[in-house]
């Protein structure tokens, strides 16, 4: 039995007084999670717009550099999605992806980046609803985290991606 849960989608105010909308880079495998995203689409299941997907053949294809490139170029979080370990198209590669994920989370925290900015979930080709739910959950979580620290972005890329003046804290009248 599960208790009924209400989800609230009220955006938390960001540092500049505007609602903060995170930008999230999502990696999917070709066989399960990309098809889950397809199924979410065919079933017209709604989820937040904040995520942008890249298809890999397997979530085990994930290179550390992809994550760092993502953070450098403006992503606030990166998601590695894939097959359930027992359903992996490449037999056991989903487990290898998990191992790499755990290692990368540790590395991120060594770099001073919140580990929650790297997320992983499984979705089979039949789990469009789950895909949407997980995206909504992660967007809410990252929204609460706020944007990635600008220094980190500078450090990763050499220069801030969007040097727009609005990115600087603006005095807002209380």
């Amino acid at each position, binding site marked *: *039995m*599960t*208790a*009924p*849960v*209400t989800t*609230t989608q009220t955006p938390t105010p960001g540092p500049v007084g505007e609602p903060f909308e995170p930008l999230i880079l999502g990696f999917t495998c070709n066989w399960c999670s990309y098809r889950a995203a397809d199924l979410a689409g065919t079933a017209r299941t709604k989820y937040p717009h904040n995520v942008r997907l890249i298809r890999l053949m397997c979530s085990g294809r994930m290179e550390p550099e992809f994550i760092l490139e993502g953070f450098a170029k403006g992503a606030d979080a990166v998601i590695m999605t894939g097959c359930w370990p027992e359903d992996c198209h490449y037999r056991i590669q989903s487990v290898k992806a998990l191992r790499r994920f755990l290692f990368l989370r540790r590395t991120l925290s060594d770099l001073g980046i919140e580990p929650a900015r790297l997320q992983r979930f499984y979705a089979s080709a039949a789990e469009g609803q789950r895909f949407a739910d997980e995206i909504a959950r992660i967007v809410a979580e990252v929204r609460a985290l706020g944007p990635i620290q600008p220094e980190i972005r500078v450090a990763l890329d050499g220069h801030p991606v969007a040097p727009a003046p609005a990115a600087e804290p603006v005095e807002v009248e209380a």
Partner: protein
Amino acid sequence: MASQYMYYPGCSMDGTGKAYHDSIQAVLPELNIGLAELDDWNCCGATEYMGISPLRSQALVGRNLALAEKQKNGTDTLVAPCSACYVNLARTDAYVRESAELAASVNDALGADGMSYTPGSVKVRHLLEIMIDDIGLEEVGNHVTRPLTGLKLAPYMGCLVSRPDYDDRWQHREHPHALDQLLLALGADVVEYSRRTDCCGGHMTQISPETGLELIRRLIVEAERVGAHALVTVCPMCQMNVDFYQREMNHHFRENHHMPILFFTQLMGLAYGMPAKKLGFGREIISARPALSHIGIEAPLTEEEEAQRAAEAKPVRRRRGDPALPTPAPREDEEELR
């Protein structure tokens, strides 16, 4: 090494469940279990408060959980012997764990008296679960000195232990055999009782007596059908409904059933060789004496039986020529004098 638990007795323990209380107090020290009663606990709301206001009901239970969180001393387990209390405590804990929104509201309310509860910090369990999972059937059986062989018992677990089962602890939610196993460990003959988790009528005896009585009747009729000497329960509400309303049920259906209902801890005490009086026998309305006579145990008289005996024993008038002196009348109620 004694196991320590926090203990939420529930309102019945002072009243209708006194025999449960007595037998728990007698049996648990034997098994080396210590119970620390939750200080200044309040009523769980039974099945009534949820229908007045769900949130207030959660806050009501939340206060108990908050007290337990504060009081926990080496244990985070809160034991409830009453199934209704157990399910109310478990429900609130489960719901605040799942919904951050509800947790915030409950804590907001608790804040009115400077209290708070961290979801999941207290583990709520029923006394039966403690016996089965923590003590274990083997240990329960190790203490048996007077096996209940020959006593046919119908294990009546009632509805709220294996249901709704917020934490997925019960594989069988309709026909669990946990209580059977425990009674078997005591040496009793356990009958296959198909109404083991049926409803005792709950508050129906209050709000719709005819239905309530019919619900009680089917429990009793089925127990008779499978040849039980007595029903065994883990819940004071079930005990009260079947015991207290059995007479009225007989009256209503113009039948004459006599099916005592006993707490499982009373039977544990008996099997451990403890005196029946100490275990709260005699407090029941439907006397357990005929049942216990099957295994040669003389149970204390019930109120009614005592009155009858007294009436029979009292010499009405002196027979002519009888040299005997009048016998003193038995004490009205030994317990009140102690």
